């Protein structure tokens, strides 16, 4: 019962919660990822434009001025000051490097005039193309920086105009990217080497991640170690730009990463954020939902238990009532069938007994006539016939009691003052009680309402109860009390004696017909069952309290508003 209620209540709740949760979470995750993508893309453009801008300045510088002008240190210094004024802290120095890798002109704080770059990798790379942005390196000056160079030709020889970009200024661009508590970004080159100051968990997996991008696939050098197997890519977006995103598991944390190409693929802008942080709001919502769900479930279980408990209780009560009703019906049926049987027997016995008595009477008649008078046994005959007559009368008493017990039809009901009935009965029983040395006390409520019953039946009830009480007290003497009162909508008459009391065994059977504790020939066992039947028929009740050795009290309940049948 409880299980069914709980199951029925839970199933839709769980299904709904799961469905809503799933769709909401999916869409929310999508939105968050899109948002992050846009953010990172914006920064990508920002950084790209920063680099392009700086490059274009150097280009403009190289295009606008001649080799002679730029090799003039004072001129170069002048240009550096202009650039530094325009972009404070971005440009560290300017220099002109000839084709052999020697810096022939220099403007800046470091003494790098005539520095030889012929062995530097960037120099070799730069000589191959028109312009070049190096990776971040420590270089000759031992501080992280990167270089923008533009190649020019002068009199058949190539030369480079190079500018050093301050790493701090560049780095701040990337470090600006801060979302939530753990969202941060970094830049790596094609080989997975860090180009910014920030170092995050993502770095340990960078080589593996880069291998998944289209622009840096060749960059993962074999020496950078095997692809880390802990990478768990969830999905890859392609939101306009060729970005790669997914989720990496590192140190028991799920980290969202987004990779975007910079510098047309030479570098990679890598953004990372803890999944928990990125989805903190949905996690928060999930916690609240779970709390509500759990409390809801608890409430359902509680209510289910309560309701089922109550329903079960009611059913049990109804069952009990039904059982009691059945028992009463069975008892009533038993009494009725016994009554019918008794009535039948009584009727049948009446006829033979009548004949016996009649024959005995006939013999008595004959005794008077014949000369049997002279017989010496005539007195014995008379005594014997008298005895037959006497026993016949006893049979008659029994059968008449049986018939009155079995009487199915109601003699007419009248309005009766119970006190009057009690007084009448006591009048009848007075002689006997005096003889038995029994005191009778009455306590009758004068304001007793009338009840509707058959006077003879009611008399029968009280005669039986009073006689029983006198019998119970016996010859030792005692007290018989009769009181009447109103209780609820019933008139209650208590008949109590100081007799020998009723044992439990007897109590269980005392209302059964033919059950008697009196010696054979003294009681029929019908008295109390008749009383019980009469009172029940009136819609009342007959109960008894008894203590063995102390006495017995019978309570007769007669409804005041008994319907006249």
């Amino acid at each position, binding site marked *: 019962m409880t299980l069914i209620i709980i199951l029925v209540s839970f199933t839709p709740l769980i299904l709904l919660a799961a469905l809503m949760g799933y769709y909401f979470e999916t869409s929310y995750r999508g939105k968050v990822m899109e948002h992050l993508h846009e953010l990172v893309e914006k920064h990508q453009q920002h950084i790209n434009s920063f680099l392009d801008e700086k490059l274009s300045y150097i280009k403009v510088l190289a295009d606008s001025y001649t080799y002679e002008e730029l090799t003039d240190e004072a001129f170069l210094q002048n240009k550096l000051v202009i650039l530094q004024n325009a972009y404070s802290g971005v440009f560290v120095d300017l220099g002109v490097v000839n084709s052999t890798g020697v810096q022939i002109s220099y403007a800046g704080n470091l003494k790098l005039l005539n520095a030889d770059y012929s062995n530097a990798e960037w120099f070799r790379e730069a000589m191959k193309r028109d312009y070049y942005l190096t990776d971040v390196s420590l270089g000759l000056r031992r501080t992280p920086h990167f270089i923008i160079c533009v190649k020019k030709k002068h009199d058949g020889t190539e030369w480079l105009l190079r500018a050093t970009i301050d790493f701090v200024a560049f780095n701040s661009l990337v470090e600006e990217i801060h979302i939530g508590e753990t969202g941060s970004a970094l830049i790596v080159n094609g080989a997975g080497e860090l180009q910014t100051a920030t170092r995050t968990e993502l770095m340990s997996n960078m080589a593996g991640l880069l291998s998944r991008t289209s622009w840096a696939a060749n960059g993962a050098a074999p020496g950078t170690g095997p692809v880390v197997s802990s990478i768990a890519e969830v999905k890859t977006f392609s939101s306009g730009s060729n970005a790669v995103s997914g989720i990496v598991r590192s140190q028991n944390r799920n980290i969202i990463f987004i990779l975007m190409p910079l510098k047309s693929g030479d570098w990679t802008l890598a953004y990372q954020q803890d999944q928990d942080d990125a989805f903190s709001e949905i996690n928060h919502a999930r916690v609240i939902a779970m709390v509500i769900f759990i409390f809801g479930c608890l409430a359902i279980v509680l209510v289910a238990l309560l309701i089922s408990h109550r329903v079960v209780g009611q059913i049990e009560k109804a069952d009990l009532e039904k059982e009691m009703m059945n028992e009463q019906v069975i008892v009533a049926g038993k009494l009725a069938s016994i009554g019918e049987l008794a009535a039948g027997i*009584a*009727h*049948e*016995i*009446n*006829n033979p*007994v*009548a*004949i*016996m*008595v*009649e*024959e005995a*009477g*006939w013999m008595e*008649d004959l005794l008077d*006539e014949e000369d049997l008078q002279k017989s010496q046994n005539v007195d014995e005959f008379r005594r014997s016939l008298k005895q037959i007559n006497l026993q*016949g*009368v006893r*049979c*008659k008493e029994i*059968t*008449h009691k049986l018939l009155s017990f079995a*009487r*199915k*039809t109601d*003699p007419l009901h009248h309005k009766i003052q119970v006190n009057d009935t009690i007084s009448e009965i006591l009048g009848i029983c007075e002689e006997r009680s005096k003889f038995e040395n029994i005191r009778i006390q009455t306590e009758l409520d004068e304001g007793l309402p009338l009840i509707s019953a058959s006077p003879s039946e009611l008399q029968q009830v009280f005669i039986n109860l009073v006689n029983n009480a006198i019998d119970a007290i016996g010859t030792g003497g005692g007290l018989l009390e009769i009181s009447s009162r109103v209780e609820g909508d019933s008139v209650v008459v208590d008949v109590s004696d100081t007799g020998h009391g009723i044992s439990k065994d007897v109590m269980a059977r005392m209302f059964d017909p033919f059950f008697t504790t009196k010696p054979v020939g003294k009681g029929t066992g019908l008295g109390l069952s008749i009383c019980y039947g009469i009172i029940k028929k009136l819609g009342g009740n007959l109960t008894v309290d008894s203590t063995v050795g102390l006495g017995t009290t019978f309570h007769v309940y007669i409804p005041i508003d008994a319907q006249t049948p």
Partner: protein
Amino acid sequence: MGMEILIVDDEVEFAETFAERLELRGFTAHTANSGEEALRIVEECAAKVMVLDLKMPGMDGLEVLRRVKKAHPLVQVIILSGHGSEIDEAYGRSLGAFAWLRKPADFGDILEAVKRAEKLVTSGALQ
């Protein structure tokens, strides 16, 4: 020749003994052992008092009572039966039963009822 009485009872022994006891006391007693027989005899004899049993095979006492009172309203019927409820008694009295006695009844009681009936019949109060 005393007063004629008809005794109706399906118990032959009872009817016979009862009749003899009545005759001993100066009555002229007829007996009948069924309702039909009773109706026939009551036509033949001059019985003015009838002692009637209720439960008999065939026609029962109440039916006999009804028919007798219809045909001979002057005949006084004393019901003497081991059967019969209060309803029967009330019905019987409404049909005009003179007395209602229960078997086994004391012979003295029956005799007393018979004598009262006889007195009623002979006094001419009914004419």
